């Protein structure tokens, strides 16, 4: 009896250790990137021979990098807004439809179409969209990149919202209608306050997706709309200096901060539910 228990504990420890090792192995490159960003030398080397913030200074003085940073923020915020709107409405529509009795046009047709971009290789999407946007005169605009990123981000927001809505008590919507609130007002006054944290998390997710996306942005951006990953790629091809590490560090920090924020928001919701 006690030997089984002993063995179980041993297995548990071994599993955890193995899991931690795999995770560490996967995350190690991030550490390397962050460390090299503090390098003083002109070439990326790990570990750096001496440390300084000189490349951070370079970054802040480079109009091109700052421009790319702004571009990424603009595209990221645009994507977050559009993808959140579409993802929330899609998930909400499907819930309403299911509530009214079974799958209709939203569940059977719209949702599979919305999910499709996740399955198409980004290179193909990028080329196709480039041709398409040329035709409709959106080439090189922020709009074109936002739309491309939205194709990817919308299904993810949709998945987040499906799970958020599955925890929503739909009888509340009935109650709101019953008390005289029309479709818009019942959504604003009753549904929204109950799912706002979920919407926020979905929006952050869309923002991160956009921030990291490279392939489609490469096809669709011009020098005036190039995003950070696009510029980084261009720069790496010319010189492997620690500037790339600095930029990557910024991206990592922003992503981690966004995830931390999302976790904080959902946890606050959880904490407040535990307290009530």
């Amino acid at each position, binding site marked *: 009896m006690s030997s089984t228990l002993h063995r179980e504990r041993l297995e548990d420890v071994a599993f955890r250790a193995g899991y931690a090792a795999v995770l560490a192995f996967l995350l190690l490159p991030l550490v390397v990137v962050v460390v090299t960003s503090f390098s003083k030398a002109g070439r990326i080397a790990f570990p750096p021979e001496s440390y300084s913030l000189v490349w951070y200074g370079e970054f802040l003085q480079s109009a091109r990098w700052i421009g790319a940073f702004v571009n990424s923020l603009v595209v990221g915020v645009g994507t977050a807004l559009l993808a959140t709107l579409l993802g929330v409405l899609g998930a909400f529509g499907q819930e309403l439809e299911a509530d009214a*009795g*079974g799958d209709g046009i939203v569940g059977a047709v719209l949702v599979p179409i919305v999910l499709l971009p996740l399955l198409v290789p980004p290179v193909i999407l990028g080329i196709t969209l480039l041709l398409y946007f040329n035709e409709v005169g959106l080439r090189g605009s922020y709009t074109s990149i936002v739309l491309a990123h939205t194709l990817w981000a919308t299904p993810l927001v949709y998945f987040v919202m499906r799970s958020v809505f599955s925890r929503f*008590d739909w*009888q*509340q919507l*009935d*109650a*709101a*209608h*019953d*008390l*005289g*609130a*029309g479709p818009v*007002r*019942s959504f604003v*006054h*009753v549904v929204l*306050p*109950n799912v706002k944290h979920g919407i926020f998390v979905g929006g952050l997710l869309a923002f991160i997706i956009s921030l990291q996306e490279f392939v489609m942005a490469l096809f669709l951006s011009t020098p005036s709309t190039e995003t950070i990953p696009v510029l980084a790629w261009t720069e790496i091809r010319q010189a492997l200096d620690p500037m790339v590490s600095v930029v990557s560090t910024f991206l990592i920090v922003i992503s981690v901060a966004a995830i931390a924020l999302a976790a904080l928001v959902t946890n606050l919701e959880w904490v407040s539910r535990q307290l*009530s």
Partner: protein
Amino acid sequence: MSEITLDGLEKRYGETTAVEDVSVEIEDGELLCLLGPSGSGKSTTLRMIAGLETPTNGSIAIGDEDVTDLPAYERTTSTVFQDWALFPHMTVLENVAFGLKMGGVSKDERRDRAREMLERVQMAAHADEDPTTLSGGQKQRVALARSLAVNPDVLLLDEPLSNLDKRLREDMQIELREIHEDLEKTFVHVTHDQDEAFTLADRIGIMNDGELIQVGDPDEVYERPENRFIEGFLGDTNFVDASVTAATADGVRVDTELDAELVVTAADGTTPDLETGTDLTLSLRPEILSIHGVDEERADDAGVRDARVAADGGTRNAVTGTVENVVYRGSTVRYSVSVGNSSMFAERTDASTGALSAGDDVRLEWDGDDVLAFRDDGDRVMP
């Protein structure tokens, strides 16, 4: 005026029919209970009156207005939901004021009216609390206040008491009854609990399998149920399979699985024309049965007894059997008695007189005109 007219109401979900051809006139100021087992379509019917479900066929009118195509938020109905559906992101007061806010009532006025409503249901002290912290009974009161605050013409109650414990439920039934008398509004109350329906209702509508089988006063549906389902649903009874041996003016003689020939009579002397061999189901409610112990000597010739004429002119029936078990149920004692190849139960309200125990031989007696008889399609034929 806010009488409700349902005409040929039907609701289908794909292949399944939830509500089928429901037609009823609910009078202004009446409290109608829709009573039926779960899945009988009573909640769906209520939700169609509220406008929360769209009927597949048929029409709904409130007063003179056809509201069939009117969405819920434009109807003058208000619903108390089974799980109360209070808004968790609002305080109790904000919950009650919500309908007024949607109705465009000014901030000060809606706060005053919401407070008034909370006082009416004795929840004013909890006005600023988070509704999720309330007990079931308190939530129920808040939900009621929220629905009444919009001053609806019709109040719809979708089993709001079913999640409360028995004691609280009974208190709330009385309170609801008082509120109804006070407001003189039309109430439609859905429940699966026959006691609740009898306590509350002016009239009861019995639903089963999506159909409204019978609408009537409580005593009418209890004493003269239209079919066998209602008889079984409205309380415990002994169903006995029988077959007609002779139908005379004095009553119908039947052969039964109790190994006894019994007589069913109609109190008004009308006997239906039933052919010999017609299959019937008799219903013998425990309250019409009297149970007596049989002495040892008489038990020998017992076994089976035929019907005999009782002193009051009605036909007295009797069978004998053996007590199988005794269940003490507080105010009553219930005896299971094996009779012939079958088993019946009877009750005594007073446990002290002549205590019977398992194994005792007993005689069960009843009046022939207290028995209900149903044809095999379920329709009542007698009385």
